[in-house]
């Protein structure tokens, strides 16, 4: 069970021969993930600690039955890598790369949503289902298996909250970092939908932050569609008021985008919002022990 990645995951790492890709790809394998292939154009035929390298994702998928791709290539090439993985038939694509241009992501977002494919990220720490599979850079040793689904826009803040949960004796079904960029492949609502349908998940923690209106959309979704309890945390309450040039932004955004506006939207629908990561973990523990 769990969502997105599990024992059936067969991972191809785009950029496995780079130093970061190699370090984390091997770490993922140590956690038990089936890392079946790597892709680096021009290095087909080589291997990384026994993992075969291919020139194209298509060749990797056809030879190894990879069903999940992790993108670990520099930002300038990440969009190309994502399109290649989609075209090769990888059903789940997890893009760790930070700094992908927004215009690229607007096109990829539209492309992905017209197809039966799941994109997580970019600019995300990846997905971990403890004891089952780890795809990305989340330090697995601080999490344990359990019933709490965790979805977050942040990397390290996710570790913090996961750590707090672990210390209270709670474990996770899956931890998903959806990515911190304004345009990412999957939203909070997408992940809440998966958690709602996952038998292992009994509660969900949603970790949001200032900017955009995805938390507000999630609040409406939770009220209307979810039977499982959700606890939220929002970062950025003390962000100073700053400037955005021009008027278009102010007119477009339906929400103020502030942490307070998000908290209000969630609480108005009966969703509890922790003030600190510590309190958030405690709220989850209360749910479980209630």
């Amino acid at each position, binding site marked *: 069970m769990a969502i997105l990645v599990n024992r059936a995951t067969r991972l191809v790492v785009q950029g496995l021969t780079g130093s970061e890709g190699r370090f984390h790809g091997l770490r993922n394998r140590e956690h038990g993930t089936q890392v079946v292939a790597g892709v680096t154009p021009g290095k087909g035929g080589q291997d990384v600690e026994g993992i075969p390298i291919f020139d194209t994702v298509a060749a990797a998928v056809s030879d190894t039955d990879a069903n999940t791709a992790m993108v670990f290539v520099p930002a300038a090439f990440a969009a190309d890598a994502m399109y290649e993985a989609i075209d090769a038939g990888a059903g789940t694509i997890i893009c760790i790369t930070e700094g992908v241009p*927004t215009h690229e992501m*607007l*096109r990829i977002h539209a*492309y992905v949503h017209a197809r039966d494919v799941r994109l997580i990220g970019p600019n995300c720490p990846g997905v971990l289902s403890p004891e089952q599979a780890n795809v990305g850079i989340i330090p697995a040793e601080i999490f344990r298996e359990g019933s709490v689904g965790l979805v977050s826009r942040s990397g390290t803040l996710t570790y*913090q909250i996961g750590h707090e949960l672990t210390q209270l004796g709670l474990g996770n079904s899956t931890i998903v970092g959806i990515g911190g960029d304004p345009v990412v492949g999957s939203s909070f609502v997408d992940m809440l939908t998966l958690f709602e349908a996952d038998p292992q998940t009994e509660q969900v923690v949603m970790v949001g932050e200032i900017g955009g209106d995805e938390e507000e959309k999630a609040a409406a979704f939770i009220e209307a569609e979810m039977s499982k309890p959700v606890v939220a945390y929002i970062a950025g309450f003390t962000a100073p008021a700053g400037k955005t040039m021009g008027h*278009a932004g102010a007119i477009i955004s339906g929400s103020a985008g502030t942490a307070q506006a998000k908290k209000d939207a969630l609480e108005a629908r009966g969703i509890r919002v922790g003030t*600190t*990561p510590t309190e958030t973990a405690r709220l989850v523990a209360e749910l479980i022990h209630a």
Partner: protein
Amino acid sequence: MLAHVADRLRPAPWPGRLARALDLHEFQGKELFRRFGIPVSEGRLATSPDEARAAAEELEGPVVVKAQVLTGGRGKAGGIKLADTPADAQARAGEILGMDIRGHKVDKVWVERASDIAREYYLSIAFDRSAKRPLFMFTTQGGIDIEEVAASSPDALVRLHVDPLEGFHPWHARRLVYQAGVEDPAEQKQIVSIIGKLYETFVGCEALLCEINPLVVTTDGEVRALDSKFTVDDNALFRHGDVAEMRDVDAADPLEALAREKGVTYVKLDGDVGVLGNGAGLTMATVDVVTFVGGQPADFCDLGGGGDAQGVVDALEVITKDPQVSAIFFNIFGGITRCDEVARGILQALEQMAIELPIVVRLDGTNAEEGRRLLREADASNLHTEATMLDGARRAVELAA
């Protein structure tokens, strides 16, 4: 009349996370408009009254002298003035240069040939974050407060999304122009052309916002961009070297400029507890928690993903340059970042810079044990370690008091 540009305060996007944006000056945005074929008035940049006079002489006839600052409200603040003669332009530039407009010091003016304006419209294309698509907005009620138009007569403001895969088609422009009620055929034709070129500008520069307010119709029936608000995606600047060079480093806060130079993500705040974390989310949460336990954060400083020892040294150099800082709180949760590297960076910085301020360190995650051991063995009297984020924040706030 010139536009009443009244940008309002909105929540700050944090660097490293949401901001990733470069705001351009009016003259820079107009230069980009010109390159993509959008009509603008001829003008010159001046940094002294003498230069403004020379510019007015070259341009001939009445000119407008406009403060170039990265904020709105220039007109209301007296930063935009009409000048009939070169001597007049020199005098007006003398008044405007050195002015403070909403905390921005004016060090350059744009001297532009004055326009005889018959009508003022509003046209923009922006990245709509919620819809994940570019959004055109157009109204014939430009020049006045456009947010007021959006609120009071929403039908007058025509909105149209563009599918990012399909891109722009001429019907987009026709729909905007007809629906907004532009009736003069010559005007329709010019605006349709400008809308197409604005999309090319938006995509060609990988902008997040291209706003023309006002888009004017002159008494001769010519349509022209009289102002520009232009924001470009930082993540795309690697392939737009000409735009990247437009960054006005002088306009930034000096500490923030130093941070940028060092590759440190840093935002200056007003308190006395220097905050340093790894990752935007955790750093934001750390700033929140410091506030929550009664302290006042002096900054938001994100070491980012890698966080090697030199990165820590650079970050500490920036933070300790702020004279308000009286204690520093390191909140590190190692993932990619290794806690032993952070500890080495702290010790290296202590050696190089002789920092006497108290430093509270909380390390967890990858190689945290090793990091804590290094700090313990260093035995520096101003180094304090705490086990949790909350305790670390409390300790730092106490020590800052």
